């Protein structure tokens, strides 16, 4: 029976016990992006608690998990000390690996992936490379086009990437940690 499995999977992977949540709402009350979310943090906990397959699916396909900025405010105020940020990380990873990401989260995910691509290649973030990669992924060519020159002239945008000596080591790390995750690319 797959129904109970998302919350028990959450428990196995993160130690978070959804049943402890008594729906007090303090997390939602303090969340900076709650008004933009499709499911508030309280709702997310409730959806896990129901053990319902459909709700689990909705959760993995939600925008909420991608809008979460991991500011850690929820867990700081939660009376039950439920590690929602850790749980959100897990839900994001699962959503990606099962190809269930919300279509509007495209840009957010693209940014993260571009970032990782950059450091995979050079070892340290190459901002120009990140921006180019991001624009290619999203097709958003106009993003920050006006800021870039200003940044460049203030010496904040390096034209040349910094390559660390351990680049090969970085690739190895990326490969070792990638092998279990399908659908990362």
């Amino acid at each position: 029976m797959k129904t109970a499995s998302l919350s028990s999977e959450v428990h196995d992977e993160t130690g978070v016990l959804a049943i402890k949540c008594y729906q007090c709402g303090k997390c939602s009350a303090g969340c900076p992006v709650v008004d933009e979310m499709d499911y508030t943090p309280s709702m997310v906990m409730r959806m896990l608690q129901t053990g319902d397959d459909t709700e689990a699916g909705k959760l993995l396909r939600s925008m909420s998990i991608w809008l979460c900025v991991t500011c850690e405010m929820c867990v700081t105020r939660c009376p039950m000390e439920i590690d929602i940020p850790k749980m959100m990380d897990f839900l994001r990873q699962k959503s990606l690996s099962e190809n269930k990401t919300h279509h509007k989260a495209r840009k957010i995910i693209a940014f993260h992936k571009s970032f990782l691509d950059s450091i995979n290649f050079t070892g340290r973030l190459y901002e120009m490379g990140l921006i180019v990669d991001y624009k290619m992924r999203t097709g958003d060519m106009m993003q920050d086009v006006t800021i870039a020159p200003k940044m460049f002239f203030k010496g904040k945008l390096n034209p040349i990437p910094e390559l660390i000596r351990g680049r090969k080591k970085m690739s190895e790390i990326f490969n070792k940690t990638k092998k279990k995750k399908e659908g990362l690319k």
Partner: protein
Amino acid sequence: MSRIGVFVCHCGENISATVDCGKVAKISSELNGVAFSTEYKYMCSDPGQTLIKEAIKEHNLDGIVVAACSPRMHEPTFRKACAEAGLNPYMCEMSNIREHCSWVHPKDDLTTEKAEDLVRVMVEKVRKNKALNPIKVPVTKTALVIGGGVAGIQAALDIANCGHKVIMVERQPSIGGHMSQLSETFPTLDCSQCILTPRMVEIAQHPNITLYTYAEVESLDGFIGNFKVKIRKKSKSLDENLCTGCGLCTTKCPQKKIPNEFERGLGFRPAIYVPFPQAVPNKPVIDKENCTYYIKGKCKICEIVCPTKAIRFDQPDEIVEVEAGAIVLCTGFDVLKPDFFPEYGYGKYKDVIDGLQFERLASASGPTNGEIRRPSDGAIPKKIVFVACAGSRDPAKGIEYCSKICCMYTAKHAMLYKHKVHDGVPYVFYMDIRAGGKMYEEFVRRAIVEEETQYIRGRVSTIYEKNGKLIVKGADTLMGGKAVEIEADMVVLATAGVASSGSEELAQKVHVSYDSYKFFAEAHPKLKPVETNTAGIFLAGACQAPKDIPESVAAASGAAVKVAALFSNDELTRDPLIAVVNRQAPPVFSSCVGCFLCQSVCPYQAIEREEIKNRNGDVIKTLARVNPSLCQGCGTCVALCRTKAIDIHGYSNQQVYAEIMTLLND
């Protein structure tokens, strides 16, 4: 030579369904020392008991084994029957062949064999039983009530009305406790002081009650029926016999700006003060920490103006020694203050107050004469937010429990607010509504429907101040967790009820258990809610756990009855199944070597030191001695005694050994 009677009970079908009682009786009759053996359907019934009594007389029995249910059920029954037949009741033992045998095994030969074994073991024990006599302890028929809140007042009045003397000790200058700080009480909206002050006056005037205020228990010794208490009467700097309570001194005192504890800091009082106008006794005390004379040696205006010259600056604390037979703990509780909450401002916002402070605002005799006004600027709040569960039900803050009364008093506060500020809007952020008492649910419904209080289900994440308003960020979980932000004029936190300060020290002084929250421990949460595990000490009210006024009053009356029951005899009878340290002839005196390991582990402080002196009065040996009034027969000392000098009557080493060897020598 033993002549033991064995009586095997069928217990209806409870035993006989799986055990062959007849066989057990027959096998038992053949045992060494058994003079008579029989079976019967219901041993505990009248005919069953008569059977035992007649058998004792007819067969000259000197010991009884009743093979039946657990001794916790009917040991007293059978022992009483023996006593009535002229046999020492402690020669009667029960062998549990029901809970330990028939109820837990199927019908089988082995089950019957086990029952036979159990009887055999008990027969062997009884062969070594000795006749014992109950211990008699005299009782001082005076009760000590510690705490003068509503629970203490009720307990004291009930005990005094039974004709016994009561000594009440209260650490504040006046009795009344938190109830005297409330404005109106739920669910009736009675004026709190109006219903309490008559009782307070009764305490002061009751011929059986001696009241010590501004006093604390200094030390406690003794045991049930015979407590010796030292009470420290803190110096009030006043001769109470001369003071008439005119109050002139309080108006002339130059130190006028001391935060008033009764008003929870919302008002001021002078250094010589009466806590509130209806105080009992209505006599002032001097706050030495803030009095100009005590700090700098100057002033003394109160002494000058006092018409009866009652001020005594050099009055010392006085220690009063009293004897009491029973003690009732009624020390009440306290509530957390707003400074406990980091996310609500660490107490720095003047307009974020706790529930008791709101009570003072709402009180007609309070700092604002009953008008709800903001402490910061005195304005009347048009939007007020009540935050329920502030600190309670919050493991992250270390308070897991529910404080029980807050849902009700929050609804009450919302109602009081609406009664006074007709165009105001009250909001309540809650998690659940706990309204389990009589007329409580109807009360809350009234607050929501009639008074139009906006109840929002969700907790408040943070409160901060901006432009003189308090921004309250909460959530509405019934709307899916939607964020709700309210710009409030005032916020009242329904803070958690906690053990009152000094509870731990008091519990250790009187040797009463307490839990991790410092609330006193009852002897059994269901069946003994007003007793403690310490014989002779009872408790009532919120010192045990947060509770409302009806429950505190009920508990107080319950405790009073326990005290009255204790006092209904001139002597207390106790089971003699206690530990005894052996005594022998000189020069040995005892095999006890005086290591006092037993004393350090005794949970009931029942081990004393006895000095053995020679004819010159020199101490030659210090031996352990068990106080027969305190010992509960737990056996811890027996297990630890290095020389086996201490043993328990009725469960001696020999008896227990005999039981075990009987089983092993099958």
